[in-house]
């Protein structure tokens, strides 16, 4: 291994992605908070005319936090981590530098374009795959550019063995490529009908039950390869780096990686329990969801044990707090998911607010916490400045943790309440509640969730402020910190 001192890494692409990730995070969470509030206070639907209804904004929220914030975070960290674990600088290759910058700008402009098309109502109406075909093509191009970056950097690497984080980045690249392309297969009607109608419109290659199967194979695994795999890549790099501890077990990381790769893809059909999809597929989805606990907990436990003997850092270093809590929420979420995938539980949970509750303890507690911690760790190294404020970081941590707890507890109660009321019958076997009864009863929980959104968004603004202050007025560092990130 070469010494780090000899290499000057080039972070210009990582910085661009960092700025944009913060921007998209803010926008996505702002819209998320607004639509959460709309469910409690429907008058808020009319702020932006037809563009401001819950239904129009909900896909904007999900796509912005997925393809803007989370994927942006994966790119930002890749352009930082990739160079360092491969022991090669972006500055060594003009070609890769150009590819990296193109990758950024196509992604950034593409994401803005796609958001506008969604607001205008161009939508395939498949969850997390709403973008119409022109936006899909932009996504394919930027994804290929990312692939060129990954394998280009690998091609000129000095460190021959790929570090664990690289496994996960490669898997993210391949997984999303496969899933996205197959799920978005559609035929633009303008070209297939001799030039009639709107050029943006397309029709899915799959129909009905087939479409459902492909969509949830995609939908569930977009969660896998968007919200899990790149985040695991991050924690495998940043937790050891920040704590100065070696990864607890190489074998456990092997088991978790290959286990996750194999098992995750089967689990999608748990979104289709009790649907007209064949029974055996539903059962496969349930069974593999349970098995999925193993590789998920494998990674999380590997992370927690990495802190063995160094738990004092949890009280001293807020970034360790963020990462340890992220692993813990990862464990919670990957236990909760399999429970919901059990058929009899799913009968109550499906279609209710327990599902968004589950999604959000995963994304707010695990994904966003980990991305923020990663960016905080990168900031002093990229900008050669101390993190602006430790106090703000601590306050942010507790504020957002409280917000996550409020979010999932309120949605658990809301979901189970609604699921039970839908099926409640009186002594004669008649349904006890009309549908609207099961909506109005949820008002307090929706209000709590909206409050949690406000708290979480406030925390994210504190994060953004702290980052901007770090970039512009943090105390300058004379040399790169080795492990623990310095903060004022």
């Amino acid at each position, binding site marked *: 291994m070469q010494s780090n001192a000899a290499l000057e890494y080039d972070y210009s692409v990582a910085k661009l992605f960092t700025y944009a990730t913060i921007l998209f995070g803010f926008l996505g969470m702002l819209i998320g908070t607004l639509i959460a509030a709309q469910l409690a206070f*429907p008058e808020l*639907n*009319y702020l932006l*005319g*037809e563009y401001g*209804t*819950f*239904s*129009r904004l*909900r896909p904007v929220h999900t796509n912005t936090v997925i393809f803007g914030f989370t994927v942006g975070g994966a790119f930002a960290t890749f352009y930082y981590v990739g160079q360092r674990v491969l022991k090669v600088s972006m500055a060594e290759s003009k070609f890769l530098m150009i590819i990296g910058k193109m990758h950024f700008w196509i992604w950034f402009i593409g994401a803005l374009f796609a958001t506008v098309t969604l607001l205008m*109502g*161009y939508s*395939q*109406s498949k*969850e997390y795959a709403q973008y119409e075909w022109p936006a899909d093509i932009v996504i394919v191009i930027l994804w290929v550019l990312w692939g060129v970056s990954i394998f280009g950097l*690998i091609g000129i690497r000095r460190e*021959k*063995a790929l570090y664990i984080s690289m*496994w996960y980045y*490669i898997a993210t690249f*391949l997984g999303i490529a*496969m899933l996205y392309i197959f799920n978005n297969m559609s*035929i633009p*009607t*303008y070209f*297939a*009908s001799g030039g*009639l*109608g*709107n050029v943006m*419109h397309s*029709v899915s290659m*799959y*129909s*009905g*039950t087939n*479409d*459902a*199967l*492909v969509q949830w*194979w995609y939908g569930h695994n977009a969660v896998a390869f968007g919200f899990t795999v790149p985040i695991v890549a991050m924690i495998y790099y940043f937790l050891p780096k920040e704590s100065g501890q070696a990864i607890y077990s190489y074998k456990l990381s092997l088991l978790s990686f*290959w286990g996750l*790769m*194999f098992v*995750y*893809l*089967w689990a999608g059909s748990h979104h289709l329990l009790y*649907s*007209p999809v*064949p029974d055996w597929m539903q059962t496969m989805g349930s069974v*593999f969801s349970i098995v999925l606990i193993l590789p998920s907990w494998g990674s999380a436990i590997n992370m927690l044990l990495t802190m063995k003997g160094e738990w004092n850092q949890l009280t001293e270093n807020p970034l360790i707090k963020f990462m340890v809590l992220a692993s813990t929420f990862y464990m919670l979420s990957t236990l909760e998911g399999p429970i919901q995938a059990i058929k009899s539980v799913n009968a109550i949970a*499906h*279609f*209710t607010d327990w*599902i968004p509750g589950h999604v959000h303890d995963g994304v707010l507690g695990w994904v966003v916490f980990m991305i923020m911690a990663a960016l905080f760790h990168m900031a002093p190294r990229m900008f050669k400045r101390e993190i602006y404020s430790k106090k703000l970081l601590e306050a942010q941590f507790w504020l957002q943790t409280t917000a996550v707890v409020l979010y999932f507890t309120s949605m658990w109660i809301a979901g189970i309440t609604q699921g039970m009321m839908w*099926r*409640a019958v009186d002594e004669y076997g008649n*349904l006890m509640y009309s*549908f609207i009864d099961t*909506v109005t009863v949820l008002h307090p929980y929706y209000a709590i969730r909206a409050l949690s959104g406000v708290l979480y968004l406030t925390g994210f603004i504190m994060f953004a402020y702290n980052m901007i202050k770090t970039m512009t007025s943090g105390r300058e560092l004379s040399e790169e910190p080795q492990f623990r990130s310095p903060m004022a």
Partner: protein
Amino acid sequence: MFHWLEKNPFFFAVMVFVVIAFAGLIEILPNFAEASRPVVGLKPYTVLELAGKEVYKKDACIACHSQMIRPFKAETDRYGQYSLSGEYAYDRPFLWGSKRTGPDLHRIGNYRTTDWHENHMWEPTDVVPGSIMPAYKHQFTNLADLETAYAEAVTVKNVFATPYGDEFQGTRAAWEAHKPKVLADAAKIAADMKNKDVKEAVAAGNIPEVVALIAYLNRLK
């Protein structure tokens, strides 16, 4: 083997791809032909209904409404017969949804009328006190895109052999010839509505989104 793979990125990537592609091949492919077979008597959507489905997609009704009735007594009592695979054979995309902030709509055509929908889309709380659904007044003025709906019908006929008649051809002349049929369908819906602006627009050959949407919702049975 793993150490070797970790030093050979190409084979590593190939290996990862094989492992992740495996499940899709085994789980999704076998059902493909069978699942897309329509139930007996199922008709493709009319052009007006397709235009309505576009409104349903555009305003993302799927964010709060499902179209999939599960085989539980509580659901069949509330919504009707549980859903069958073959009923969705012409649904591109499928619109089962994943969340019921509002009720299921798979058979809403059985128990709601044009008149009910008109009032409800204009102001949901007038019809269902306590509803948290937003009003969709813009659907009363925005025009439905009938030509695109026709283009979709032609596309699925040509590419997937969806049984539309011979008159469905990818030419402007064919569309102009079919258009009066669509306008007649719309006029039937508008006859049951009371909004003056909508009635006038339909009479003038402009179809507001809400008319197409109601045609689509009435078809869901």
